[in-house]
């Protein structure tokens, strides 16, 4: 406990001694972590939108007249990419079509046998799986025809892929920049006190006692930066979502607008900032202290 008090005091001295550098680090970390947070939320919203689109993405498969529709359904359900299958009889299909046609349903009053065969409405787990599913369905001897929104699938898949890549790149860049800034600050802090560190080690201070104030300094700066970033996210995210919902009403159900989810996300971001600061500081301090205390 006594040691911890001394360590906290030394950390205070470090922050006071390099307060301008500390402030710059804090601001940079806050900006980068805000970018990281907003990018992650943007990506999560895109994923949410895509999963909604995917859930609405349907592949229609029609059974050959002489084929057994129960066997075909069983085979389709066994496919990995299939999430759900709804089976429609010819009469159900006709009724559905008539309902869709509304006033113009009279054109469907055909003489003779109902031409619509047994068919399946197939839902997939992932939009990327549709192309393969269509190939698999087309190869089944029981299936006569497969209908799906090909271009929509391709665009949804492409958007999903681009969004994931952009989010990943932004995430990596933000982490690297934040890590470098914290690393550099602690390195300057260490370098300016290298003589002092050497003397401390020479008169019996342990490496842990020497290193801990520097590690705490880096962790605290990154954590405070993360808290600022969280404040920034809370101030910008919800107004941004409201604005989008007003202008693009079809997005209403796709945007994450739950205060609890965002709060939890902010806690995660703050924890991530502190962890990142701790890891960077630990690496630079361990390397520096090792090099300065190594006997010749």
């Amino acid at each position, binding site marked *: 406990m*006594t040691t911890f008090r001394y360590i906290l005091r030394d950390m205070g001295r470090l922050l006071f001694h390099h307060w301008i550098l500390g402030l710059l680090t804090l601001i940079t970390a806050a900006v980068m972590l805000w970018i990281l947070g907003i990018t992650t939320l943007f990506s999560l919203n895109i994923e949410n939108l895509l999963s909604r689109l995917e859930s609405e993405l349907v592949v229609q498969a029609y059974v050959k007249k002489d084929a057994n529709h129960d066997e075909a359904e069983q085979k389709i359900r066994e496919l990995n990419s299939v999430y759900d299958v709804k089976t429609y009889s010819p009469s159900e299909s006709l009724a559905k079509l008539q309902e869709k046609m509304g006033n113009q349903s009279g054109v469907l009053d055909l003489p003779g046998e109902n031409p619509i065969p047994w068919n399946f409405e197939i839902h997939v787990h992932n939009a990327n799986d549709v192309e393969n599913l269509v190939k698999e369905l087309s190869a089944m001897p029981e299936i006569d025809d497969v209908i799906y929104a090909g271009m929509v699938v391709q665009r949804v898949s492409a958007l999903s892929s681009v969004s994931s890549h952009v989010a990943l790149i932004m995430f990596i860049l933000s982490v690297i920049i934040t890590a470098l800034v914290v690393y550099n600050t602690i390195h300057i802090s260490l370098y300016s006190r290298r003589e*002092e560190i050497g003397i401390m*080690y*020479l*008169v019996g*201070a*342990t490496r842990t006692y020497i290193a801990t104030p520097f590690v705490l300094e880096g962790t605290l700066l990154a954590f405070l930066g993360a808290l600022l970033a969280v404040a920034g996210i809370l101030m910008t995210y919800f107004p941004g979502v409201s604005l989008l919902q007003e202008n693009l009403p079809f997005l209403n159900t796709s945007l994450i607008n739950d205060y609890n989810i965002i709060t939890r996300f902010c806690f995660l971001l703050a924890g991530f900032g502190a962890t990142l600061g701790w890891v960077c500081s630990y690496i630079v301090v361990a390397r520096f202290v090792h090099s300065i205390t190594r006997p*010749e």
Partner: protein
Amino acid sequence: MKISFSGVSKIFEPDIVALRDINLDIKKGEFVYIIGATGSGKSTLLRLITRELLPTRGNVYAGDYDLRKMRKADIPFYRRDVGLVAQDFKLIPTLNVYDNIAFVMEAMAVPPKIVEYRTNEVIDQVGLWRRRFMKPAQLSGGEQQRVAIARALANSPSLFIADEPTGNLDLKTASDVMKILLAINAAGVTVVMSTHNQIIVNSCRQRVIELDQGRLVRDEQSGGYGRNDDF
């Protein structure tokens, strides 16, 4: 603390031989002068004892420790038992006299009340009470040296290493520093001091170890600076 050098050589890269095959025993409670010309290996010998350096060949033993095989984690604990006074004082410029001395005990997690009591005690012992809140740059060379001595005394070490502690001081101040070192030795602490100061060596007769180009050329009880005391 007892010190032993067994066949110790120290070669700095690429081929500077600082010490050659040193065999030496220093008993607990002894006062030993290490003398020799500049570059003779005095500081290297002291830095081997503080384990700032490792021998290229041979072994150095201090107390119960084999310094070559010592675990990294044990180094701080060993050094807490070694009071070190360097020629360049090695004081922390941003800390005042009090904090320069106190931090040695703080590093050992000594409770603040004891740190305060002991720091004030050693400051008083070296006669710097009125200067205790001054920074090193505001002190004279002799005063800085006394701060270094006070810091080395703070942990009540059993070995006291002084690397030319009177090197930059006038005779009167050097004499004051010597009085402090002799008092420390009188309390049973082993003192190893390197020096160029002939007057001090000749006036305060103690064991003299002389080095020449890294070789131990003289080891004499109650010796003077010159081989034949002709200074």
